[in-house]
């Protein structure tokens, strides 16, 4: 019997169900018959308990139900299997369970780690006839199946919730789409159409809410834009027509100017030669009064000649007749010196000192004759408006890939507020009127046109009461200063 106990848990003690029956002989108890049923290793009992409760149900290769009889905290009979698939006899209950059931004599219900899996378990105390707790009866049900069941239930529930949510979202989406998104999309589309120039495009005003208001405002704006656009287009057409008319007027004006100037040129030329022949005494000597009068007439003829020359230049430039024929030009010899020569008399009369800072070898790639016109204008101005006995300085400097050519003179300078209109057609400066010098109001305009046709710019710098410096640039294009 002890051996049987040791086999079933390595414990010499045993736990038994038992009964004691008095043996009476003739009304007198003569003995006691004691019967017992050893529970240690009594697997048939626990199996019977399990089968009566769980009908030997299996779940994923494990029995769903288990039953164990504990002697104290020692499993003496069980159908709980260990890792090797053996009945887990000889193992012990957890301290928590032992404490509650064995020490306190109360049932323990809950989730328990039984040998190698979680079980939903109930432990009940086993008492001896004196009500002492001597063991425990355990019945457990594998938790996994409940967990799986719960998981499944949860999944089902979750799917339902998700489905409902999706449905709700879909409903929301389509509702929003109809009430907000679509109108906004239509507005957005309409905006693009508008941006692409379709001012006739309108959005449908579907609702009486903010979106509807927005759509209505949009349509109003588009309508206004269309009106504005039409106004602008008609103004533009009008302007363009006006522009064409002006251009035509300008062209015919320039043609007339050119024609008149050309016609004036020949008689003026003959008059000039004739008058100066008399004035200079080639045709006989003059008295002082005659000389004075003829000198004055000569000055007027000079002015008229200059005027005619400038008008012809202007009319040719404006009619686009002037072609820039670029070639290598020795600036000093071919352009500046010939111009200075024509101005020699005036330079001497005004006592001017010409400081020609141009290197003799300086060559520029430009139209020689157009460049002469530029220097003619700039030098004529310097001689005319420069301070008497002052200087006229010519310079050349390389600046940022351009060659800058300058003509500077000592003089009153040009007031800042007059610089802006200096290069405009028919501009006249207060200064010119003060000095009593007549100008055509065209020279600088012509200079600018020529310089710009060469791909350069022209400007003026000045210090009032001291000096004036005109400078223009030409593309270098390999200009050399040998």
């Amino acid at each position: 019997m002890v051996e049987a106990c040791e086999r079933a848990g390595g414990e010499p003690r045993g736990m038994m169900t038992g009964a004691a029956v008095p043996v009476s002989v003739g009304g007198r108890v003569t003995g006691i018959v004691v019967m017992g049923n050893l529970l240690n290793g009594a697997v048939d009992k626990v199996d019977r308990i399990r089968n009566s409760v769980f009908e030997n149900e299996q779940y994923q290769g494990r029995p769903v139900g288990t039953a164990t009889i504990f002697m104290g905290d020692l499993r003496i009979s069980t159908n709980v299997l260990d890792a090797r698939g053996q009945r887990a006899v000889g193992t012990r209950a957890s301290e928590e369970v032992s404490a509650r059931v064995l020490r306190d004599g109360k049932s323990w219900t809950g989730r328990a780690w039984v040998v190698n899996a979680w079980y939903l378990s109930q432990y009940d105390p086993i008492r001896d006839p004196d009500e002492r707790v001597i063991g425990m009866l355990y019945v457990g049900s594998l938790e996994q199946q409940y967990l799986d069941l719960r998981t499944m239930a949860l999944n089902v529930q979750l799917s339902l919730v998700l489905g409902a949510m999706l449905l709700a979202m879909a409903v929301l989406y389509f509702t929003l789409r109809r009430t907000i998104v679509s109108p906004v999309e239509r507005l957005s589309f309409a905006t693009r159409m508008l941006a692409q120039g379709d001012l006739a495009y309108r959005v449908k005003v579907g609702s009486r809410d903010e979106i509807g208001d927005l759509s209505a405002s949009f349509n109003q704006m588009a309508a206004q834009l269309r009106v504005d656009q039409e106004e602008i287009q008609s103004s533009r057409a009008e302007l363009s027509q006006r522009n064409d008319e002006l251009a035509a007027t300008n062209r015919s004006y320039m043609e007339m100017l050119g024609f008149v100037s050309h016609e004036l040129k020949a008689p003026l030329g003959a008059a000039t030669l004739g008058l100066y022949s008399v004035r200079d005494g080639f045709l006989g000597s003059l008295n002082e009064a005659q000389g004075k009068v003829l000198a004055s007439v000569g000055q007027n003829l000079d002015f008229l000649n200059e005027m005619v020359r400038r008008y012809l230049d202007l009319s040719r430039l404006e009619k686009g007749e002037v072609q820039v024929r670029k070639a290598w030009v020795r600036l000093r010899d071919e352009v500046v010196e010939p111009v200075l020569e024509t101005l020699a008399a005036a330079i001497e009369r005004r006592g001017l000192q010409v400081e020609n800072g141009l290197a003799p070898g300086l060559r520029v790639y430009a139209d020689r004759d157009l460049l002469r016109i530029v220097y003619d204008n700039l030098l004529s101005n310097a001689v005319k408006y420069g301070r008497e006995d002052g200087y006229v300085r010519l310079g050349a400097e390389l600046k940022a890939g351009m060659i800058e050519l300058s003509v500077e003179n000592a003089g009153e300078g040009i007031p800042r507020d007059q610089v802006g209109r200096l290069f405009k057609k028919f501009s006249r400066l207060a200064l010119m009127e003060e000095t009593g010098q007549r100008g055509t109001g065209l020279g600088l305009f012509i200079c600018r046109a020529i310089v710009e046709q060469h791909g350069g710019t022209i400007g003026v710098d000045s210090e009032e009461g001291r000096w004036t410096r005109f400078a223009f640039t030409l593309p270098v294009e390999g200009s050399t200063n040998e």
Partner: protein
Amino acid sequence: MMGKAMEKRKRILVIDDDVQHVDMVKTLLESVGYEVKFAYRPQKGLEVARVAPPDLIILDVMFAGPPGPDGTEVARMLAQDPDLKDVPIIMLSGVRKVLELPFSLSTDADWMPARTFLEKPIKPDKLLAEIEKVLGPRKP
């Protein structure tokens, strides 16, 4: 003595269609002692030159009126005439050189119709100086 002086006078032919200008040039040049012939048409100018080759020809460039050779073409014909090819030419024109002329007058051009180009309006001192450069100093 008078006759001898007349013989020594240089003869200048002016070919120009501007009647007034021709008049002024003629008056000036004669007053300083040149003998002046003139023609208003290029073709007529060539005829006058062939009859009596001048010492100098003052030639306009552009001619109004019926179509005919212009000043540069006249210069070319003169250069091809064996009797006239050495007669110096001064071109005097209202035309502003390259601005209007159909050919380049730059110094490196293949052929030059004249050594001297003058622009109208011209003043007497300038014109006389240019003539003297070609013909030498005037007799006082």
